[in-house]
Every structure is written in structure tokens, then in C-alpha cells.
């Protein structure tokens, strides 16, 4: 057996596994989206009826817009906080190692606990959030963040949870910045801001791009934290597509429609990825000109 054939043979179990856990569910989901599937029973072929149904559904449109706001808000905050904290933790100071480990705590706390803690923190008359604002004389009467600013609040909650990942990711990227390049820039008289803009940022940009992509998938698909904190409410204010998929499939038992929304999410993410894939090339070529 040639080394090539042996290599393919050894890869077979992996491909079989990927086929079972990724390809089959994807294709089966697409297949189901063309059927009427009440209560999990495939009843009849309805072709595009499920798609027509979801596109004419106001709840779907609201959920899609919510998903965009949710994803954009999270990526922006997580990247900004991740970058800031990573730059800080990249400096040499006493207690830095403790800080680097401690920063991971929110990331390792289960979503259920995070949701519970944040709900209590946001409690109008018992929660620490209102207590601090009252102590600072910034408010007269309690505010109710999970009603008045529901989407913003859950974005902040999720950012708190996922920022450690961004911080560690960017920190590892910062450590790939060669110190001699930085030193050379200093010798040439560059200030901190100039070094960051013209040396550090270009070097870590690929990492930021990749992290942005990951953050896009994770946030766009995130279900648990929203479900546990607000259940998609008040009204539909925090109902994103994953929440709607779950509700439509397992609360209203219209699984064909749930599958159609899933397929829509899949296509939407594929389009965004394609744009991200081609956009840098265009810019690169433009730069060359």
C-alpha cells in the first residue's frame, strides 16, 4: 500500500464521523424543511410552503433583526474589550499571571449560573446594579434593565461571559509581535499609538479576523444564555433566530418551519462567510493598484 492510500485509509474514520455528525444532520435538516413535520412526524411534502410561511411571519423578521443586532453588538464589544484587556495583560506588572488566569473565570462558569446571577444582579430592588446606581445618586427610582434595555443587557451579559476568550486569543496574538520590530520602531521615534497602529495591529489582524469569524458563528448561534435569562422576552425583544427555532420546533411543534429557519440561518451565515472570504482579496488587489 502506498503512503498516500494509507493516509486516506486512516482518514476514513474521521470522514465517516464528520458525515454522521455534520453532513447527515445538515442534509436531513434541509430535507425536513420541505416537509410538514408536526410533532416530529413527517407528514407530507410541502415544497417551499415552510419558507413562505416563515418569510411572511412578523416574528421571524423580528428575530432576524434581533440576531443581527445581537451578533454585531457582541462582536463589537467582545473585540474592543478583548483588545483592551489583552494589551493590558501583555504588559509586565505584578500579579499579571494571576490576572491572566482570573480573567478566565466568567468563561468557565456554566451558562445557567451566569443567567441566574445576572438576573439577580439586575433585580430592581435587590440587585447590585441598582444599588450601585442609587449609592452614586445616579437614579431616583430603580430601573429594570431586563425590561427597559433588554437587548443591551443580554449583550453585556454575554460579552462578560465570552470576553475572556477574546482576551486570551488576542493576548496570544500579541505575543507573536516580534520585540525587535517594536524596538526598531521606538528607535525610529514612534510613539505608543503609532507602534500600535503601524506595527502591532497589522501583525495581529489575521488573528482578529479569525476571532471575528468565530465570534460571528458563536454569537449568531447562541441560544442558552438568552433562553435562560429572558426566554426571548419581554415580548419578542430578545428573541433571536436560535430562540425562535427552538420555540417553533419544540414549543409550537412546527418542526418543518423550525428546520426552514435553520436552513435560512445556514444560508445567511454562508453568505456572510463568502463576503468575508472575498472582501479581503478585493481590498488586497485594490491596494496593489
Amino acid at each position, binding site marked *: 500500500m502506498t503512503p498516500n492510500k494509507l493516509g486516506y485509509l486512516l482518514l476514513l474514520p474521521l470522514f465517516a464521523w464528520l458525515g454522521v455528525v455534520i453532513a447527515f444532520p445538515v442534509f436531513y435538516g434541509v430535507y425536513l424543511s420541505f416537509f410538514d413535520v408536526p410533532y*416530529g412526524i413527517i407528514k407530507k411534502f410541502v415544497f417551499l410552503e415552510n419558507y413562505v410561511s416563515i418569510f411572511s411571519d412578523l416574528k421571524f423578521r423580528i428575530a432576524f433583526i434581533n440576531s443581527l443586532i445581537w451578533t454585531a453588538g457582541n462582536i463589537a464589544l467582545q473585540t474592543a474589550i478583548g483588545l483592551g484587556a489583552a494589551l493590558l495583560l501583555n504588559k509586565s506588572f505584578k500579579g499579571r499571571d494571576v490576572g491572566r488566569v482570573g480573567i478566565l473565570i466568567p468563561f468557565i462558569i456554566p451558562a445557567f449560573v451566569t443567567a441566574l446571577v445576572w438576573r439577580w444582579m439586575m433585580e430592581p430592588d435587590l440587585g447590585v446594579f441598582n444599588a450601585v446606581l442609587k449609592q452614586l445618586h445616579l437614579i431616583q427610582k430603580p430601573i429594570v434593565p431586563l425590561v427597559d434595555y433588554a437587548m443591551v443587557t443580554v449583550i453585556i451579559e454575554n460579552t462578560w461571559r465570552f470576553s475572556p476568550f477574546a482576551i486570551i486569543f488576542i493576548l496570544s496574538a500579541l505575543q507573536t509581535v516580534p520585540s525587535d520590530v517594536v524596538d526598531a520602531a521606538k528607535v525610529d521615534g514612534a510613539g505608543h499609538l503609532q507602534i500600535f497602529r503601524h506595527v502591532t495591529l497589522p501583525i495581529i489582524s489575521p488573528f482578529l479576523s479569525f476571532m471575528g469569524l468565530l465570534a460571528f458563528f458563536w454569537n449568531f448561534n447562541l441560544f442558552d444564555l438568552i433562553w435562560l435569562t429572558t426566554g426571548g422576552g419581554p415580548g419578542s425583544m430578545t428573541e433571536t433566530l436560535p430562540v425562535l427555532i427552538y420555540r417553533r420546533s419544540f414549543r409550537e411543534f*412546527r418542526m418543518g418551519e423550525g428546520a426552514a429557519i435553520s436552513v435560512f440561518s445556514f444560508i445567511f451565515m454562508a453568505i456572510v462567510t463568502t463576503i468575508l472570504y472575498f472582501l479581503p482579496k478585493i481590498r488586497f488587489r485594490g491596494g496593489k493598484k
Partner: protein
Amino acid sequence: MPSGRNLKYSRREAISKIGAAAVGAAAGAVIAGVGGYFAGLSQTAPTTFTETVTRTVTQPVTHTVTASPTTTVPPLTREEKFKIERPVELTFWHHHAPPPRQAAIQKAINLFMKEYPMVKVNIVVVPWEEAWPKTLSAIAAGTTPDVEWSIPDLTIAAWEAGGIIPVDDLVKEIDERYKWFENTIRPYYWEGHYWGVPWSTMAWALMYRPSILKRYLGTPEPPRSWDELFEFAKKLTKPEDGVYGIGLTASKTLYAQEAIYNTMCVFDSTIFDQQGKVVFNNPKTIKAFYAYKELFQYSPPGSYNWNWGDIELAFPAGKIAMMPYFTMPQRLFYEEKKGDERKDIAAADWPSPPDGIDTNLHYPNDWIIFKSAAEDENRLNAVKALIMFCARPEIEKILTAEQDPGVWLPPHEAAAEYPGYWEDPVISFFREINEVAIEAAKKGRLYGFEWGAVNTAVGAVSGALVICDVAQRILLQGESVESAVAWGHQVIEEIVAKAKKK
């Protein structure tokens, strides 16, 4: 996304490719979330078939029952055994994760296995949140347990999915022996059959803290009329002391749905009429939501988002003086409070408006038998033996009083009158509460099931939490009651229309 103008092309391309692969995986996971659940067999529509149960009457067992002067217990002079000819292992799903509950259920099952040594029962705890997806996916994939504890909404969903068999014979047998509370068995009847066998019920009453009432009103007596309820709630709201008159919620949860319906039902407001037509938008519902809105202002500011656990913390903590709720938490007061505080919990009949009806929410819980169990007569007999065994008053006492006193209430008269039930330490300590609870259980009703399952889309309507959406529009988003109720009516009609079309 950073533009990265200074990057090498190949590097960026590599990153993009990795990204594309990751998108595929992530999107796959989303679809897998739905597709994976029912990646299995397509099922045919539910079929109806009758079961003939073969029983062998064995040696009579004499039950010694010391009847109290106020109770009568049907004599249990014979013990029937279902014909189980060879060893069989059953799988039983329930949804009660707390250890004391699991211990009580295990105790009952152990007693069953002792009496039926050829039957082994494997218990699987499936949390409530996963009950619907797991049950439906198990039906679709043909991997159901033999028997499961359910509630009317889930029973309907399992029936719609074609997974369960009728249980008319068991319902009739238990009724003859123990006499069901009529409203407890009513939600399980549709299409000419019973589809669930109640093992307990739950009922809402007005729970209150006498010490708080005494502190602010000078008397520990609860409100007895609708007007008094509002008056008390208002007078007991003392934000400066951290005390509020009543605990209600506007969250998007099953708890909220029950709390809201508990107010709707006393106005005789229903989702469907007797013919199953949607009648949600009517003057009674509008009155009910006005009442809920008014009462809600005496609930703690954070209660808009409460779920079960939150109110169960707020009540013992003395943050709320009254709460319409299940007749609990008795065990907590009994085991964890000291001195006079142990008795600082009481229950009263949930008041009703002058033009309303005397009722409250109740929620029966039932056994459902899956078709897979009916494929083999020996297995089916073992399942039926288990259900009949657990319907005995002395076993019901374990499943209700011992599992969580006051939460689970007897579903039939024999269990409610069984002296052993009233001799349970917690039940007897809070006897007055439990007397209120039993009466509430007898007169309670459940949304969508007031006349039985007259519209089998009720499961989808309930699952969509439309009532909660209506409440949130009114209480949190400032919409008028009339407009929100009209919106809710339209949404319910859409859900029903889609369910009927299927």
C-alpha cells in the same frame, strides 16, 4: 472586522478558508439542533386500538386501615396481579430531579419491584425543560421508554406524534376502586378515549404569611373576597420595608402562564369554548387582564422576570406577603424554619370576583404508556401493573406527601381520604393548608382543558406562551389590555389554524 490591508494574500486566504469550514460546522450544528432530534423514522398518524388485560387474581392481601372518623376508605379486600409470565425490564421517565423527590419515587418503585419480582424498573430522570424535545424525538426515532410521567400538554403532544396508547381500562379500573376527582381525569379525554392516567394533581390557592398580615393589618386573617384581595395587596405593599403585597410575574415562562390563568379562570375566561373554538378575546378575559394588571403593581419590581425558583425564594424570605401559588413550600417551613416561624405559612381559598366563579388553577400529572410497551403483552401487563400499583392510596401517599408535601396532591378520593396521607408529619403539621389544597384540587381547572381536550391544538398554544406575551405587552410594553388581548386572540387562531392544517 479589521481590514488588514498590510497582509499577505496567502495568509488571509488561509484564514478565510478556516473560517468557511467553521461556518459550515456552526451552521451544521444549528440544523443538527433540529434535524438531529428527529433523525429517525417517519411515523404514521396515531392509531386507536383496544387492549385486553389478562389478570390473575392471586391470594387476597388484607390491608389494615385505621380510618379516622372523618374519612372513609374503600376496602381493599383483594389484590389483583397482572399476568407477568417472564422477567421484563421497564424504562420509566420522570422529570423530578430534586433528591427528596427522587428518593420518594425510588421508594415506590422499590416496593413495586418487591411485589413483582419479575419486573425491573429502570428510572431515567429527564428534566422538564427537555421533556418535550426528548419525548418527541424518542417517538420519532422509535426509542421511547415504556412509560413516562406527563402533564396534559405533553400527553397531547405525545398523542399527536402517534406515540401513546389509550388507557381507558386503567382509568375505569382505578375509578371503580378509588374514584377519580372528576376534574383531574377530564383533561385526558379526547377522541373517545382516555390517554393519561393521573398519578397526582397540583392546585393553586392563596398562600400567605400570617405574621406579615398581622404586622401591617393587625390580623393574620387572609382576604376572603375579591375586593379584600386588592385592598390587602395594597396595604401590605411597603417598599420601604422591602415587603410587597403579592407575588406575581410577567415572565415568559410556564409559571407566568399559570399565574395569569389563575386570575383568568375566576372570571370564567377561557381560550376555547366547549366546541373548541377560540374565544380568548372576550369581555371576561379583558376583565381578568385588567385585574392582573392592577394586582401586579403590588408585586416586587423585579418580579416581572420571575420563574418558579424566584418566587419560592421570595415567599419564605418574607419579601411578599401573599402569593397565588401551589400549596407550598411546606417542607421548607417544616424542616428549616424555627419556633413560631415554622407555622408562619397558611393557605386560603383563592378569592373570586362577584360576577366570577369559584375556581383556581390545577394541574394534573399523569402516566402515559408508549406504543413500544404495547408490542409485547408481557411488557404491557408489567406497565399496567406498575400504574395500578402506584394508584393504591398507600403508594399515592409516598408519591405525593413524601415526594413533596403540598405540591403533589392525591388525584382520587381514596388517596385523599387515606389516613396515612394525613398522618404524614408535614401534612399533619400543616393540616389546614392541605385541607384547602384538596378542596382547590377538586374545583380547579386548567387552561384549554375546561371541558376536556376540546381542541388538541392546546399543546401548541400553551407551548407558545401566548398568554405570557399578552401580559408582557400590557405590563411591560404599555399596550392597552383590549389591544393586547385582541392580538393574543389572533396569534392563538393562527397557531390553531396551522395545527389543524397539519
